[in-house]
């Protein structure tokens, strides 16, 4: 892809016998918010570390900002910002001292430093709290300050490794607004997350499982895997019984529990909520409500992981 900010081809990384990342290929366009989904140990972080030039790929190539990560890892570092779930700030330093330190190691000076410092403070909402110790900041502010420090040098590409871990919902929302702004100003964002609702903010999503890329596309594209398999949501007083019966029905591919409701994935088009209800009641399962639902990202995620595992 000509205008790809990140281009990954057949990327693999082995640790001894263990294949952490297995022949992964994808492209990320400039200005795109690209979500990386996957369970712990699926290979997301390893992939990011290779893209940041921290870890050498065992095979395959990756170019970030036009630079081959294996050939010039230091050059990559100039063009990227990185922030992890740990919000790696120095807790014993003040807000301002943290900004100064990261400005220093990114080589910012003079008016440009002043301007970027201002930007980071504004973005984190910490104007007026410059001399607060970082350890005294609440999670949300810390997270935004960490992001500000990570993009002080205005990198065209930003990697966020589970950036919203341990942060309250309001702060998460604010954080995603910042990511949207970054994207609108042309910054490419690659973000990993556990939260499927956050993935809805992404332009495109890649699902990783056991080191492999299991699916990739927009949320709509991903949900298309259910185009021929309607999902019926069933409310039943005894959800476990309902699931056991549903699993025995030939028309039902699989079931999963969503809160108090059961999602049943049909094997064919045309299965209606009414017929599911009738089948259940014929077998003595009380049903309070059935309806056909749009697949959620969680449905997609579970489906993709299951299929790639089998």
């Amino acid at each position, binding site marked *: 892809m000509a205008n790809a900010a990140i281009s990954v081809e057949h990327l693999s990384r082995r640790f001894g016998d263990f294949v952490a990342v297995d022949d992964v290929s994808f492209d990320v366009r400039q200005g795109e918010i690209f979500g990386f989904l996957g369970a712990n140990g699926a290979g997301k972080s390893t992939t990011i570390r290779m893209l*940041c030039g*921290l870890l*050498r790929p065992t095979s395959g190539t990756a170019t970030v900002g036009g630079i081959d990560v294996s050939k010039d890892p*230091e050059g990559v*570092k*100039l063009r*990227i*910002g*990185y*922030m*992890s779930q*740990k919000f*790696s*700030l*120095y*807790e*014993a*330093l003040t807000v301002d*001292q943290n900004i*100064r*330190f*990261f*400005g*220093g*190691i*990114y*080589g910012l*000076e003079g008016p440009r430093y002043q301007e970027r410092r201002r930007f980071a403070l504004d973005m984190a909402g910490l104007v007026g709290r410059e001399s607060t*110790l970082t350890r005294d900041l609440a999670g949300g502010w810390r997270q935004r300050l960490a992001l500000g*420090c*990570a993009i002080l040098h205005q990198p065209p590409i930003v990697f966020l490794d589970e950036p919203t871990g341990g942060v309250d919902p309001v702060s998460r929302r604010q954080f995603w607004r910042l990511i949207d702004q970054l994207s609108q100003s042309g910054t490419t964002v690659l973000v990993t997350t556990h939260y499927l609702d956050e993935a809805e903010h992404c332009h495109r999503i890649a699902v990783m499982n056991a080191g492999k890329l299991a699916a990739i596309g927009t949320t709509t594209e991903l949900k298309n895997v259910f185009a021929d398999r309607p999902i019926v949501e069933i409310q039943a007083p005894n959800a476990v019984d309902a699931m056991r019966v549903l699993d025995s029905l030939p028309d039902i591919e699989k079931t999963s529990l969503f809160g108090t409701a059961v999602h049943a994935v049909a094997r064919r088009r045309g299965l209606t909520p009414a017929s599911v209800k009738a089948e259940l009641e014929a077998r003595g399962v009380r049903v309070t409500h059935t309806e056909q639902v749009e697949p959620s990202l969680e449905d997609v995620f579970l489906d993709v992981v299951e299929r790639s595992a089998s």
Partner: protein
Amino acid sequence: MRKALAVGIKEFRQIRRDRRTLMILLFIPVFFLLLYGYALNFDIKHVRLAVEDRDYTPQSRRLVSAFVNSTYFDQVASVTTDAEVNALMDRDQIRAALIIPQGLGRDLTRGVPTAVEVLINGENSTTAATVLGYAQTIIASESAQYEMLGRARIPGGTTVVKLEPRVWYNPELRSTLFLVPGLLAYIAMITAVVSTALAVVREKERGTVEQVRMAPIGTLPFIVGKSLPYFVISFVAAIGVIVASMVLFDLPVRGSVALLLLSLGLFLSGALGMGLLISAIAESQQVAFQMALLSSFLPTIMLSGFIYPISSMPLALQVITYIVPARYFLVALRGVLLKGVGFAVIAPQLGALAIFATLVMLLAARKLKQEWA
């Protein structure tokens, strides 16, 4: 270099915020000095003395009262046999014994050279050395009086009463002055090796090093910046120890100050390098601390000649001492401080220190680079 400075400034701010660490780095050295200096140089007045006077003449009584009147000795027992002296010494009831042989008075009147025996408990070497010094002074001044009175005329100018010192339990004496350089090496090791090692490993533990690794900064500027504050602080602490020793223990600085600082700088560089090397290997602060203890701390105390003379070690250990930087530092330091020697004399030691520092720094940078790549 600017980036190294940014790291250094950050580190310095962190240390300043961390009052406890700063206190440890700056004041523990002087505290140790006081502790060790005084503990090793304590209780030098009112030494409990037993007297075995076999002579019992006016001259012998005069010598005993000279001991008692000096206030350095308290006569706590009068005994008649050596066995009693042994028993008292074993039970720690006396620290010294004065044994005057029969015939002292007679010999003194005749002007024949004679001798008295002073037994000193040498368990605590510094005290023993001091006590020995007092005994010698007292006897020498008594002896001089006899000479002046003209009662004794000895050819060759030797003193009339000659002391034959025998120190028990520890035949080899060391004074505080001899110990201070060793303490300095030991203290520098604590501050430099331990604090540097912990500082880097702490960043590993907290994950902040990950963020730094993502930035376009090489291992070398990071290492240099990281160790800069510790170098400055341990330098200041070391100079504090020297000044305190000068004031409290009359440590002389007979050689050039520049040479002293040079030796100190080289030694500290090696110690910092050691700390960085440990930090590149260790993953947790506990491990780092133990490695620092084993690799720097103990060798500095045991294998540097600080406490145990290298020449009396088994050959295998003697060989190991060659890679203990404190060994060279002690020779250089004692040379500059106590003997006032010039550069030429301690050049081999300084060379060894420089080589050690360079090697260990290179090794640390390489190890860290491996780990980062």
